[in-house]
């Protein structure tokens, strides 16, 4: 079976006026089904750009990107949108929930552009799996930061994606909430076989995953397995 993600010699150059700014200078890597990897690197290393391309939000300047064996790098808007809808689950640092909608409606939004069958039931189920089944009516502003990020995880989860991409998922959270989020991600990876890739600049967070890819100046400078991943402390009331 093909790798979930297989990128080969991926390059991305932004044009700023007359200036060409290279951000990715030939990145090759593969992520297999069921892996939990972290991508580390200082700011400007190109990790966000790599994440955007893997997430089908952006197209590479050159190179190949196979998503579940399909070449994605030359796709147009409609096919990329469909790929985002069916194969990618995003979790952002700033949650990116719609403030007008309830937690449940935010989760349902992910199904609105694709397979709508049993949308409500599946959304409720996703909320329950992150321990927020009882708070589905609340709007984002009535929830804590940790809870909002759990709604975002439920939203990414509800479409059963090929891979969950988490961009600094704990960056805006306190220690306790961060532990909650990492515990949930670890459980989903361990029990449900969810493939997780997370971008972080915190070594502490990265050590919760089983493989660390280090990026610097648009190149991979390290790709190491983690011998003994840290297990996140489980908070009360959060299923793990």
């Amino acid at each position, binding site marked *: 079976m093909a790798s979930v993600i297989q990128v080969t010699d991926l390059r991305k150059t932004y044009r700023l006026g007359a200036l060409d700014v290279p951000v990715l200078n030939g990145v090759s890597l593969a992520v297999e089904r069921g892996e939990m990897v972290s991508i580390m690197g200082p700011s400007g290393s190109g990790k966000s750009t790599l994440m*955007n391309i893997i*997430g089908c*939000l*952006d197209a590479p300047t050159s190179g190949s990107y196979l998503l579940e064996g399909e070449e994605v790098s030359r796709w147009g*808007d*409609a096919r990329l*949108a*469909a790929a*985002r*809808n*069916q194969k990618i689950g*995003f979790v*952002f640092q700033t949650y*990116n*929930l*719609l403030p*007008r*909608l309830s937690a449940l409606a935010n989760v349902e*939004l*992910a199904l*609105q*552009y*694709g397979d*709508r069958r049993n949308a409500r039931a599946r959304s409720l189920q996703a909320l329950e799996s992150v321990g927020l089944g009882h708070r589905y009516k609340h709007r984002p502003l009535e929830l804590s930061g940790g809870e909002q990020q759990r709604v975002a995880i439920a*939203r990414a989860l509800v479409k059963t994606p090929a891979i969950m991409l988490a961009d600094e998922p704990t960056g805006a959270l306190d220690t306790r909430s961060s532990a909650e989020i990492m515990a949930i991600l670890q459980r989903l990876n361990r029990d449900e076989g969810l493939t997780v890739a997370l971008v972080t600049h915190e070594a502490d967070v990265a050590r919760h995953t089983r493989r660390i890819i280090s990026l610097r100046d648009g190149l991979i400078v390290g790709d190491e397995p983690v011998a003994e991943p840290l297990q996140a402390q489980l908070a009360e009331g959060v299923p793990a």
Partner: protein
Amino acid sequence: MTLFALIGTALSSIGGNRLRTGLTLLGIIIGVAAVIALMSIGRGAQEEITSRIESLGSNLLYVRPLDGELTLDDALALVDPVFAPSIVSVAPEVSTGGSVTYRTTETFSQVAGVTPEFADVRNFEVASGEFISAAHVTNRKNVAVLGSQTAEDLFGERGPVGVDIAVSGIPFTVIGVLESKGGTAFGNEDSRVLVPLTTAFFRLSGQRTAEGAITVDLINVQADGERIDEAQQEAATVLRLRHEVTDADDFRVDTQQSVIDTLSEATGTLTLFLGAVAGVSLVVGGIGIMNIMLVSVTERTREIGIRKALGAKRRDILAQFVTEAVLLSIGGGLLGVGAGVVTSRVLDGFTLAGSELTTVFSGDIAALALVVSAAIGLFFGIYPAARAAQLHPIEALRHE
């Protein structure tokens, strides 16, 4: 996305800012209400004119000179059981204008010289006194029958019968007052003064043909029942023979219906014109929608980014914003129809510059206004929606 979900999403974001939505709607509401109110006034005028002309008698023909002359003898020749069996009766008219004075009160009105048949042919009843008789015509008597409006202008509540007045400086005795036929903004049968035809011709207008015959300006012809077309043919034939016409007629014969048609066409154009003027405010309302949609796209850039990250295609975003714009304009359109109906009801019977407005509301006006407002929402909604759809997902997600 299903249409149902689209409408639900659009309604929830429209409802998110009530004041702004209300003000945007107001632009469309005013536009649609103005279209409906003004077109109702135009329709009202149209129906008023038609019914007023029909009240003159439905079996009437009008004969007018056309670069030639019509004489009193022409008129009398039309009453001919052999050549014109479909013509019942004729009422020739000589019209001039003039001042009508009673003591110090003066009014200007149309003065018509008529024969006794005029009352029958044109369906006039005398409210008080008597109508002009054959003897008055023969003897060129200085007697006058006043239209109800003229009588009121000169005499107020008093009865004018038997009183002396002056028409263009010549003394006349009032012998009767006509019943009111009702007037409109487009002319008034009630403000005329009727005098014997001979008196009008010799004393007031003083014109004459080369042969010394009495010329008339109009011949009212009454047809026998429904035989209007036959009467029109017969009148034309008789006059062609008398005038020895070889090519083009030097007169024209109009039926009541052709007069109604001509006037309806004119007022129909007026109605459309009024609607178009009001339509300008509808376009302004549409620009209001466009403005608010552009603001909304900017404010919701992040939302657009989130939706795109979750798998919304360009056309999903396009559909979402176009739906919002069209819902705004249709909502405004529906409220505007309500406001327009109320306005046209209120204006019905309202007196403007001395004449009473009549408004007629009909469903086709409302349907037209609704369709136009929906089209305006679509037209002015597409540009902001296209801008939203073209946003790059990453830039939209980074937007603060």
